[in-house]
């Protein structure tokens, strides 16, 4: 298999190269890292809904829509990317998605372990260490190929990741920052500055080559040729244009930022006969946390809303119906035009 070990590259190239390889039907492994920061959104996302485009524009941070799944991420040189391009239908590709992720994330897990970080695979596509995500990845079927992209996270700018997101209010942003810090780790955080510094980009890539080599090697070192460069330029003329970035998608009735598999920060607004309910909360491995209810509806006595928040704290999502029904039965609570069904629409269950 061809190996492109490219080091730091212009940010556009860090995305265009694997799209171009796939469109050309070339298999290969690409290891690189962007020379400057940018924001990358998933194919299905609405850029204006997900990302604070004004902030990005003002601060010279480009935004790119990839032809791959997943959500908005802030990418910079603190992350080392791997991009594996395989022909669709290749015998090395397991039929099920979970088996695919398990197989092709195993080199990443191995590399982290060789650094002394107790990483493990968590379905469907997370690599976690000590309960925290430590690598992101996604797949796209591009041209006649399957493209698997992901990263080793040496360092992560939590502040910028949180800042580039479009959020309903600053309280929500604070919650995203806190949850992100608690649920995403880096090589620096795991090893400490001094030990992490020993693992240079070169050394980490050498480990990646060795680990991926066991799955898809041996490798032949390559550099981008004219045909590849021409395809990247051709794709760039489309994918770097506003018309590609600003594709309208219908936003749902909630703002939901996925932090890692099973951890989401949510704001939901629900219209009902009695008015409008707004709720901010986290769902962490199926449990509610940090529940905050506001909005425009009548509740007597008003302080019971705080009690309801406390009642929902830590609840498993599918027990919410039971908890709310019990709360109404046990409390002299009046919420005209707001019923159990409305709370379920907000919190699930």
């Amino acid at each position, binding site marked *: 298999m061809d190996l492109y070990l490219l080091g730091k590259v212009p940010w556009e190239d860090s995305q265009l190269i694997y799209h171009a390889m796939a469109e050309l039907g070339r298999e290969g492994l690409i290891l690189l890292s962007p020379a400057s920061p940018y924001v990358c959104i998933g194919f*299905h996302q609405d850029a204006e809904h997900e990302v604070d485009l004004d902030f990005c524009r003002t601060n010279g941070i480009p935004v790119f829509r990839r032809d791959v*799944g997943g959500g908005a991420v802030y990418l910079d040189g603190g992350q080392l990317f791997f991009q594996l391009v395989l022909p669709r239908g290749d015998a090395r590709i397991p039929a099920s998605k979970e088996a695919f992720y398990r197989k092709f994330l195993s080199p990443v897990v191995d590399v982290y372990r060789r650094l002394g970080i107790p990483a493990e695979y968590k379905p*469907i596509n997370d690599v976690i260490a000590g309960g925290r995500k430590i690598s992101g990845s*996604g797949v796209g*079927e591009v041209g006649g190929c399957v493209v698997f992209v992901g990263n080793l996270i040496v360092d992560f700018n939590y502040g910028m990741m949180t800042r580039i997101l479009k959020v309903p209010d600053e309280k929500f942003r604070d919650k995203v920052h806190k949850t992100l810090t608690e649920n995403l780790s880096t090589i620096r955080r795991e090893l400490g500055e001094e030990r992490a510094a020993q693992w240079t980009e070169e050394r980490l890539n050498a480990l990646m080559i060795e680990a991926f080599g066991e799955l898809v090697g041996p490798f032949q070192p390559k550099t981008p040729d004219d045909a590849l460069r021409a395809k990247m330029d051709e794709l760039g003329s489309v994918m770097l244009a506003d018309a590609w970035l600003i594709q309208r998608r219908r936003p*749902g009735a909630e703002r939901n930022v996925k932090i890692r598999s099973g951890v989401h920060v949510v704001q939901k607004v629900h219209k009902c006969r009695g008015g409008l309910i707004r709720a901010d909360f986290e769902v962490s491995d199926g449990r509610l946390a940090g529940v905050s209810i506001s909005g425009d509806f009548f509740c007597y006595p008003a302080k019971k809303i705080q009690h309801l928040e406390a009642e929902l704290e830590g609840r498993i999502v599918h027990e919410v119906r039971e908890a709310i029904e019990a709360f109404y039965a046990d409390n002299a609570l009046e919420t005209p035009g707001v019923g159990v069904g409305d709370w379920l629409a907000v919190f699930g269950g």
Partner: protein
Amino acid sequence: MDIEGYNLPEDLYYEKDHYWVKADGDLLVMGMNDFAQKLAGKIVFVQLPEPGKALEAGKRFAKVESGKWLGKVNAPVNGELADVNEELEGNPGLINEDCYGKGWMYKIKPDNQADLGQLIHGAEAIRTWMLEEIAKFAKK
């Protein structure tokens, strides 16, 4: 009919990537089958191209995403996209809830309705195909 826990109505036609097709007057209706939606997990996005798009059998005309995997939807027959299920734009999870009903995806005006005959159809053919598929997907 139930095949190892997957519901595959035997009156439908199936294409190999696990989309079902059925005739509806001059049109064909298409959606994801139960095996695919269960394996996919929560569907988070379905691309809904503009009706009128020309379709070529076996060629990609839309995308669907679940589990951070952006996959392709191939046309089951030659024809033209006649309609899309707009409900899926705001609620793609309808595919998981009711893949043969409210979660239908596309309507196609086929060049030749007889092309349906090239798809997998009939209880025996469906069962044979599905058992092979289940075995294939069980492999690690």
